[in-house]
Structure formats: structure tokens, C-alpha cells
């Protein structure tokens, strides 16, 4: 789009937000990842959560939002909420505890909408109190229930024939903004007058959906877009350098990983020693600087793979401060010790076969591809001949699904604790033998009963001590087996411009995530002030 609107936007109180997600269709169901509201993130300013948890600082206490109070009991199987008074839906109706019950029951009854797969039990209401029960302990899902479950109005939604397939064209929410116009390219929202708390200074939000990262990057660098989340290669030069005083990157780590997954069922990669040795030569700094342009996926340095600083408090004492450094000689020593031999520059495994490694990822994922190129180069130092297979995405997906690969760059699940990431790496319950499709985590076919037990123990632990113990065990198993080589953390970041608006979260004041699609985006928008 043209740049003409930027100069005026501040005067009109307009904030331009962008996402590189292509044309949108008019649907504002917050529970459908395909809806425009979700894809662009404006569901967060229409629908509000019960409480706001900041994933950048997951150990900070949750900030009450639509619920003024919330208590867990019964080993995290019962949640008791007090619902805020004086909140009005944007159509003027009052927000009540019934709406919360309706939302929970809706998700329970409609698996298609229950995208977090929360095992809802019965929910009861008395006055402004809501008591929700769950069929299993929900400690690990606290964030999902409190922050990632936007509350929808019963009086509107109960009129839908099928809430999963009826398009929510006219969204009614408790949030500070309401939908003004919708076009496949741009969605405009107006601030509400009767919002229940300080509605901030932003008068109008414009969400633009750019076709791809490049278009998004261009828009950012011209100033047409002031807030976005997209991968920009060499962002420092392409974006920040265009206006260093205003253009900023804020990319805090999330508690999820990107790393090199081995097929732990396939020789010789089933040998932890080999994986550990490779771990010792992978240059995470190069990956961060060249593959991730020095900002996008923050480098993971701790040997446990837990992203820092978000996960600092979870790291077991024995691993605190233990960072991985490139150590070719150490790796070689480790390999020789484990029975590998070097024939000149070629590493031979215990059976005398040269070690060959095929690294594969879809061709279109240029950052992963770059990472693989770097890894390929790195492993050559310990005599491993690697090839990079720029696979077709569908083929690749299928190969990963059936365990037909040597090693791939892949992600893990994430959450407010390291539990989710470890679970998706090592949980035996997710294990499927090589050749059987349908894996949902544990793509590397990692098998360790201890790890599975420890994960279970963590989720069901009655207290913090139990959880800490379980997590420490998990970390040890991870470090000893190295099922994946964690190279980077997922991010919660965003690009923004302080030219018109100030008050954005920063590394020092990480009060919210950087992504405009995160629930905390609402906190950011309420905090923004026009630049002087």
C-alpha cells in the first residue's frame, strides 16, 4: 500500500498493524485459526480472556482481566472464577458469568473449536462465580485456559446453527474495539466508548494482511505498517537501518524450540554419543546470525535446550550456566571413545561404515535451509558427509510423519513451562514406530520409559517440589541422550515503529509479547501513547 497514510495516522489515532497472511475472508470466530480475526490477531482486541499471562515472563503472576479472581483446587482439576462486573458487550448487553459457562460448555461440546484440547468437565454458575471442573490436572494448561480462551457472548452465539461453521460476521465482544469495515486485505476497527477500563489512546486499528513476508517487510520499512510479526531476512539492514531511531525489533524467546531432530531409531543416529558429538560442533551462533538474521529465533545456548531468559528459573542446578560451545576436538574425542574411527577425514561408525547424514527440510523454508547448510558445514569438521535435501513440503511432511528421515530441522510445542517442549520431544505416549504415520510430537521416535514417567509425574504433581524434581530428571535424560540438537528458541516477537506510537514492550520492560497476534497484544495497544 502507499505510504501516504503514515504521516496522518498518529493525528487520527490510527495504528497500522500487519501480518503476512494473504487475503482474508470475513469470519471473526476467535476459535478458528483460519478466521481473519485469528490470523490477523484482532480477535484479541474484540474478545478478552479471563486473565492475562505474559509468556515472555511465564513465572510472573497472571493479571486479572474478565475474571477478577481465579483459584485452582483439587490438584488443578477445579477452577473457581469471580467474573468482573460492569463489563458490557459491544452490543450493549451486560457480560455475565453465564457467558463464561457458555464458552466452556461450547468448547466441551464442539471438539472442532476446542483447539487446545482442554478436557472440560462440568461448569456451574452461581452469581458472579463460575466453577469449572476438568477431567485431568491442568497445571500445564493454565495459560491456555485463562489467557487463550476468549470469552464469547452467549446471547449471540447461542443463535448460531453450528458455531463451528457459521461465519461470525458481526463479532460482539467485551474488548475495547469493534469491527468497522472488513475487506480481504484490510480490517478496520474502531475504539468503543463504553469499554470497562481505560481504553488507551489508539482510536482506530487497521490490520492489513500482506501477501507474504516480503510484502510485509516492504510495508514495515516504508512505514506503511507500524507493527507486525514476520521474518525479515537481514532485518537489521532491511528494516531497522531504514530508520534506526524508530524501527525496532523485539524478539523475546518463547518456551518452544527449533532444532535438529534425529531419527533416533536409525543407525547410526540411534547412538547418543554420535548425537552428542554433533551437538558439540553445531555452531548456534552462525545459525542465529546467518539463518535467523541475528534476531528471529533467539539462539538456545543452555545444554538443556531450555530457552533463556524465559526459562531461566526452570533450569536444573547442575546445568545452570552450562552453555554449549563449538568443540571439534572434544567431539572427536567423544566419538573415538565411543568406538568410532577416522579414516583420514571420514568418520566411520562402529561397523566401519562411513557416517553419512541427509539433512532435509522443505525448500521454501529458507531459514531452516540456511541452518542446514551451516550444520552440513559444521559436521564436515568431524568427518560426517552431509547432504541437504531441499524436499518438497508435502513429501517432507509425510517423511517426518512416518519417520523416514535422518535428521530434520523441526520445531517443538511450546507453553508457559518447558513441559510442553520436552513432552513433544521425548514423550513415549506420542511414540509411533518408524513407518507408522500420525505422530503428533516425538517425531524422532525417541524411546525412554523414564522420560515418559517423568513427564507424567510433572503434569500430575501436586506441588512445586514434585514438579521441580520431575523436570530435573527430564533435563538429565535430555542432556544424556540429546534426542534433538536445540539450536533456537521460538519467539514471541514483533517488529514495530516508535515513530507515531510509543510505549511498546522492550527487553527491559517485557510486559507483553511482541507478536500482534498474542493475547497480550491487547495490553500493548492499551499502553501505547502518541509519539511527541
Amino acid at each position, binding site marked *: 500500500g502507499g505510504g501516504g497514510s503514515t504521516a496522518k495516522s498518529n493525528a487520527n489515532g490510527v495504528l497500522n498493524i500487519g501480518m503476512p497472511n494473504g487475503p482474508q*475472508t470475513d469470519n471473526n470466530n476467535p476459535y478458528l*485459526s483460519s478466521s481473519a480475526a485469528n490470523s490477523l490477531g484482532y480477535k484479541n482486541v474484540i474478545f478478552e480472556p479471563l486473565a492475562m499471562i505474559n509468556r515472555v515472563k511465564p513465572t510472573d503472576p497472571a493479571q486479572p482481566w474478565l475474571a477478577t479472581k481465579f483459584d485452582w483446587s483439587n490438584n488443578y482439576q477445579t477452577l473457581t472464577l469471580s467474573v468482573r462486573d460492569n463489563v458490557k458487550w459491544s452490543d450493549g448487553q451486560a457480560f455475565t458469568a453465564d457467558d463464561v459457562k457458555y464458552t466452556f460448555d461450547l468448547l466441551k461440546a464442539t471438539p472442532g*473449536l476446542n483447539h487446545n484440547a482442554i478436557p472440560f468437565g462440568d461448569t456451574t454458575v452461581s452469581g458472579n462465580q463460575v466453577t469449572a471442573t476438568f477431567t485431568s490436572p491442568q497445571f500445564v494448561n493454565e495459560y491456555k485456559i485463562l489467557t487463550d480462551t476468549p470469552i464469547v457472548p452467549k446471547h449471540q452465539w447461542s443463535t448460531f446453527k453450528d458455531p463451528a*461453521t*457459521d*461465519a461470525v460476521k458481526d463479532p460482539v465482544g467485551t474488548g475495547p474495539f469493534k469491527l468497522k469495515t472488513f475487506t480481504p486485505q*484490510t480490517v478496520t476497527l474502531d475504539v468503543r466508548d463504553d469499554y470497562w477500563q481505560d481504553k488507551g489512546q489508539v482510536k482506530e486499528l487497521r490490520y492489513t494482511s500482506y501477501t507474504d513476508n516480503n510484502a510485509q517487510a516492504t510495508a514495515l520499512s516504508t512505514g506503511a505498517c507500524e507493527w507486525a510479526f514476520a521474518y525479515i531476512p537481514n532485518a537489521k539492514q532491511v528494516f531497522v537501518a531504514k530508520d534506526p531511531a524508530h524501527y525496532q525489533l523485539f524478539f523475546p524467546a518463547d518456551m*518452544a524450540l527449533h532444532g535438529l531432530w534425529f531419527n533416533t531409531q536409525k543407525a547410526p543416529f540411534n547412538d547418543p554419543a554420535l548425537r552428542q558429538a554433533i551437538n558439540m560442533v553445531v555452531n548456534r551462533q552462525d545459525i542465529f546470525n546467518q539463518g535467523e538474521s541475528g534476531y528471529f529465533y533467539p539462539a538456545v545456548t543452555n545444554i538443556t535446550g531450555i530457552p533463556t531468559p524465559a526459562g531461566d528459573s526452570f533450569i536444573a542446578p547442575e546445568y545452570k550456566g552450562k552453555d554449549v560451545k563449538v568443540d571439534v576436538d572434544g567431539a572427536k574425542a567423544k566419538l573415538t571413545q565411543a568406538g568410532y574411527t577416522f579414516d583420514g577425514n571420514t568418520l566411520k561408525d562402529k561397523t566401519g561404515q562411513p557416517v553419512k547424514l541427509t539433512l532435509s527440510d522443505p525448500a521454501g523454508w529458507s531459514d531452516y535451509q540456511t541452518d542446514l547448510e551451516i550444520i552440513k558445514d559444521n559436521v564436515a569438521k568431524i568427518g560426517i558427509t552431509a547432504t541437504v535435501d531441499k524436499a518438497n513440503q508435502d513429501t517432507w511432511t509425510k517423511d517426518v510423519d512416518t519417520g523416514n528421515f535422518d535428521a530434520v530441522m523441526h520445531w517443538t510445542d511450546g*507453553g508457559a513451562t518447558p513441559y510442553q517442549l520436552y513432552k513433544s520431544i521425548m514423550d513415549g505416549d506420542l511414540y509411533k514406530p518408524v513407518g507408522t504415520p500420525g505422530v503428533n510430537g516425538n517425531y524422532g521416535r525417541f524411546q525412554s520409559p523414564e522420560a515418559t514417567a517423568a513427564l507424567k509425574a510433572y503434569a500430575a504433581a501436586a506441588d512445586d517440589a514434585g514438579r521441580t524434581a520431575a523436570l530435573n530428571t527430564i533435563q538429565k535424560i535430555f542432556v544424556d541422550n540429546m534426542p534433538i540438537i536445540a539450536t533456537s528458541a521460538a519467539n514471541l516477537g514483533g517488529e514495530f515503529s516508535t515513530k507515531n506510537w510509543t510505549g511498546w514492550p522492550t527487553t527491559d520492560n517485557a510486559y507483553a509479547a511482541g507478536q500482534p497476534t498474542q493475547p497480550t497484544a491487547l495490553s500493548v495497544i492499551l499502553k501505547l501513547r502518541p509519539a511527541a
Partner: protein
Amino acid sequence: MSYLLRRIAFYVFTAWAAITINFFVPRLMPGDPVQALIAKEQGQLSTDAVHSLYVLFGLDKQQPLWQQYLDYWGQLLHGDLGLSFTFFPTPVTDVISSSVPWTLALVGVTTVVSFMLGTGLGVVAGWRRGSWVDLVLPVTTFLSSVPYFWFGLIMIELLAGPNSIFPSSGGYDPGVVPGWDIDFIGSAVQHSLLPALTILISSMSGWILSMRNMMVTVSSEDYITVAHAKGLSDRRVMLSYAARNALLPNVSGFALSLGLIVGGTLLVEIVFSYPGVGFQLFQAVGAKDYPLMQGIFLIITLSVLAANFLADLAYLVLDPRTRKEG
């Protein structure tokens, strides 16, 4: 009469075959929509969502392929193309109808212009063979051999910018609300300039080349000499005698390209973030959005067949000798 019936049967058969293939082809592709979605999100979507998505898309019940195929025809005959997965739960018809006008306008206009310009230049290049006009062809071929996106990006880099009249992406200004008003149309036209130019420059040489070659072929036919002998003006001989006889391949090509207009021009739409069908198809393929893919294939099929029909008619009009006698 029987000729007409035969043609109709022929088209119906072709349509059936194409639709059938278009049903099965996407389903032969490895992967499914949910996996594609998860892969696309690269971890932004938690694995917990997987189940909900299968339920949502109705993929949790395992139906045999042939059953799906029959259902598909059942739906199709009711004019129902299903719900798109990527834009769930928007009906495919809505998704397509939101993008078709863009593509029709951009690609349609440029195809017509490119055909006319290219054919015109081709006529001249063939007629004035051996003069400086010979240069036109290598130059335009050079431009058209350049990959679309390469050319597009260079154009963006050189021409577009915050203060340029050429916006670099989108179908219209983000602030403008679509409607039949000056603002919107102006903005839409402005946004279509660069993509149009790109398509034009890169597609013209094909027309020039084939027209030129045909002109050279017919240029020494006896009737051309007769036309000169008749003292007709050079223009008239060139157009009504030479070009008219040389036109057949180009016109049939043109008819075909009309059919492919609705398919859009994938890369250009991508480079310029143009909200057209080509881009949508590309996304649908990536997302395994079967209903959307099928919907787009269906309209492409129908328009290609219609174009074919047009082409068949055009032959009859253009060259009476193509008529089957007897």
C-alpha cells in the same frame, strides 16, 4: 444436428474427465490439510489443535475415496462447492468470487492488450522482415525470458517506493473500502499498473514471435502478390491479406489464454501481492485445501472449455477451409 450433438458430447466428456482428474490429483498428493496447516505454522499452532482441526474439516471419519468422489458430484450438481479449509468456514464460492474479479480485471485486460499489441508488432515484424523491426523480437524475448518475479521485483525496486505513483503491493490502498467509487477504482487501477506492465512485457513476445513466423510463411503466397497487383494500400495488403491468413494460430492461442485468465498469473500475483485467483490456488495447493482447489479447478476447467469452444468457432470464422465438409 448430429454434428452439434457430437460436439456437445465431446465437451461433456472432456469436462467430466477434467473434473475427475482434478478430484483425484490433489488427493494423490502426500499429506493432508491439517498437516499442511501445522507445517505452515511451524510451531505456532500447538499439536493439541490437530484433533480439533480434523473434526472441523470433517476429516476424522475415514471415507473411501470413491465415496468422496460420489459425494463430490452430488454436491457439485447442487451447485455446492463446499467450505474452504484455509478460510474455514467460508464457502468456496465466496472465496473464489472475492478473487475472480481482481484476476479478471488484471489478467484479462493485460491478456487482451498483450495479444493485440504483440500480434500487431508481430504483423509488422513479419511484414517488414529484414528491416530494423527485426530488433523488436530479440528485445521482447529478452524481456519475456526474464522470470516474471525477477522482473517484477526489479520493477518494484526501481519504480515503486513510498513516494512513487506505483504502489508495490496489494490490489488497492489498505485504507480504501472497496466499492464503485473514484477512490477505490483509482486506487485499484494504480495498484494494477506495475503488475499489468510486468505481465504485458513478459507475455508479449510470444504473440510477436508466432505472428511474425506465420507472416513470413504466408508473405509470398500468390494472393499477396495479387493484392499488390490490385494496388491495394500496403496496410490493407498487410492486414487484410497477409495478417488475416496468418492469424489463425495466434487467435487459437488467444482463445486458450482467455480460458486461462481465470487461473491468474501465479507469480505476478505473488510478487505484487495481488488478491487474485492464481495466488489463491497456489495457497490452496500448499494448504491441501481440496474444496478450494477443486473449486478453482472447476472454474478453470469450465473457462478453458468455453475458450476452446470459442477457439473452434474462431477457426470457422477465420479460415473457411477448416470447416469439415460433407
